């Protein structure tokens, strides 16, 4: 069991993460995700509050916790002219990993073919896979990934996701920060939405989506639409105006859409998208901003 509570950049966060859970900390840049995971990693100490991992704190049991927690940073620059396998062996030496374990991890992160390449010659995705393999070398019970796919192309991102899916059966607990909605949706059964250091929502994806009704009309229009005129839309939940358009959250699209279209007629709608609400819609519903702002 792990409990976090801290203040300032992370303000009054109270979380309990159970063994084996895959938890995504989702939020825009500056939401406090990295600060929170740095406190979980033991790199920063909270100004106030406590963090317990397996019932232990970093102050008392740093050495033990280091062995049980694996870490993969947003960007780790390894030594340029050291080969992939040499890098893996170097990190393996910190916890007495065997040669077999090193090879096993190279296989897991799909870098066996690259094992003799210099790190400097790897692509961004390959470097990140190497970092992931290194984080997994010691068979950590908790794996913390801080924006592991930021800056990677979609293909490289999916490769990382696949590896993380493969290790799910090992019972590892995963704590992942990301500002990619799809990443949190794809990997994590539990999502913690953060903004400005606070937790806005916490729960399984379907619960988060259900909590706000489920469907979104996203539109662009020539003129602004007043909220008053949208209140008569059946199942209307809320309306977030945006530059040149907005999003309307409704409980049932089938009932809402015809009334919405007639209400918005005078605004001159140029583009409209009706969909099941996504986490990005949840976030904008809560904060008025999108995840990528």
């Amino acid at each position, binding site marked *: 069991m792990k409990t976090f509570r801290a203040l300032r950049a992370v303000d009054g966060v109270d979380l309990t993460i159970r063994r084996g859970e895959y938890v995504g900390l989702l939020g825009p840049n500056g939401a406090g995700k990295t600060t929170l995971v740095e406190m979980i*990693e033991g*790199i*920063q100490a909270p100004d106030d509050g406590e963090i317990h991992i397996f019932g232990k704190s970093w102050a008392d049991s740093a*050495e033990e916790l*280091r*062995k049980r*927690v*694996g*870490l993969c*940073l947003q*960007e*780790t*620059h*390894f*030594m340029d002219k050291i080969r992939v396998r040499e890098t893996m062996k170097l*990190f393996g030496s*910190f*916890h007495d990993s065997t040669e077999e374990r090193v090879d096993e991890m190279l296989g897991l992160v799909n870098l066996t073919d690259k094992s003799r390449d210099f790190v400097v010659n790897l692509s961004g995705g390959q470097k990140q896979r190497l*970092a992931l393999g*290194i*984080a997994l*070398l*010691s068979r950590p019970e908790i794996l913390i990934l801080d924006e592991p796919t930021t800056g990677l192309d979609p293909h490289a991102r999916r490769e990382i996701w696949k590896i993380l899916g493969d290790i799910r059966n090992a019972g590892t607990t995963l704590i992942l920060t990301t500002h990619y909605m799809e990443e949190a949706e794809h990997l994590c059964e539990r999502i913690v939405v953060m903004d400005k250091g606070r937790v806005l929502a916490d729960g399984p994806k379907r619960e988060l989506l259900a909590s706000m009704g489920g469907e979104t009309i996203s539109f662009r229009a020539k003129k602004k639409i007043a909220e008053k005129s949208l209140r008569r839309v059946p199942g209307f939940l809320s309306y977030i105006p945006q530059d040149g358009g907005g999003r309307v959250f409704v409980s049932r699209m089938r009932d809402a859409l015809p009334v919405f279209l007639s209400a918005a007629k005078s605004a001159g709608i140029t583009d409209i998208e009706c969909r099941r609400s996504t986490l990005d819609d949840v976030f904008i519903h809560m904060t008025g901003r999108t995840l990528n702002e």
Partner: protein
Amino acid sequence: MKQILQLSLAQLRGFLREPGILFWAFAFPILMAWVLGAAFDKKGEGPVSVSLVQTSPAALRPTAGASLKKDPLIHLREESADAALLALRRGESQIIVEENSAGVKVRFDPANQEAVLARYRAERALSKNQLPVNVEQITARGSRYVDFLVPGLVALGIMNSCMWGIGWLMIEFRMKKLLRAMIAASMKRIQYLISFFVTRIIANTVETGLLLLFAGLYFGIRIEGTLLAFMMVIVAGLVAFTGIAILGACRAASTQVGNGILNAVTLPLMILSGVFFSYHNFPDAVVPIIRYLPLTLLADSLRAVFVEGAGVAQVWLSCAILCITGAVTFVAGLRFYRWY
């Protein structure tokens, strides 16, 4: 034009908003100019040191001593032949003037620019009294400029190898967040630090070995003292500069600041510690301080072992001071080390 202006402004702002860079860019060069200026501004006209060795009975002495003393630009040291040779080897004097009943002999190393200058000075002073002067070039092993230079270069190599090989790499590891990743992977901190020392011992054995091989084959330079004393001095130098490098690199997390700190340590030592020229050029008041700078201790001890045939008994004190310097700076560096 607008773009150039904005781009230049952005660069200048970035520059001016980093206090570390400001210091190294503006204050440090001024400081260096001041130190160097103080040491070398009157170099051309500054006094040269001349060792005067008199071998004939006092009554028969010609007036070489008196002639040389008249020149205000000659700092005269009257001493025995052995002491004069030692002073020459240590760079404390540039030439030897030997005087006996037959005349005056000026001995100097033509490869040493300072000695050439001193020779002309001395000859000019002596010619005023129409003393017959013989000139003898010193080419004996141990007394040439290269004999002075090579131990200094070995010392300089140790310093640079530690400061850049340890200090720079540590800053780079921190900057790349590699250190943080290694700490997260349960790396033992003490083993991390020791690994740098071990690497330097290996790298420096090769570096020093190659330099000595070349110096031995090309210049015929040999270690006159005991091998044990030589190894002791090398290890003490590595200990001292490993500690200094760790202290220098304990906080810096950017290359600009790191570069500044490392240069701030290495450049003054390189200039002050008599690697290329004797530090006796500096004002007398600072020479006793310079004598105890780590690079000076290292270079002087190496010269004693190389040229003067020193053994453990002659160098142990310097080695102890170097080791203490290393230990103190290591502990201080560890105390302030930024691991994340």
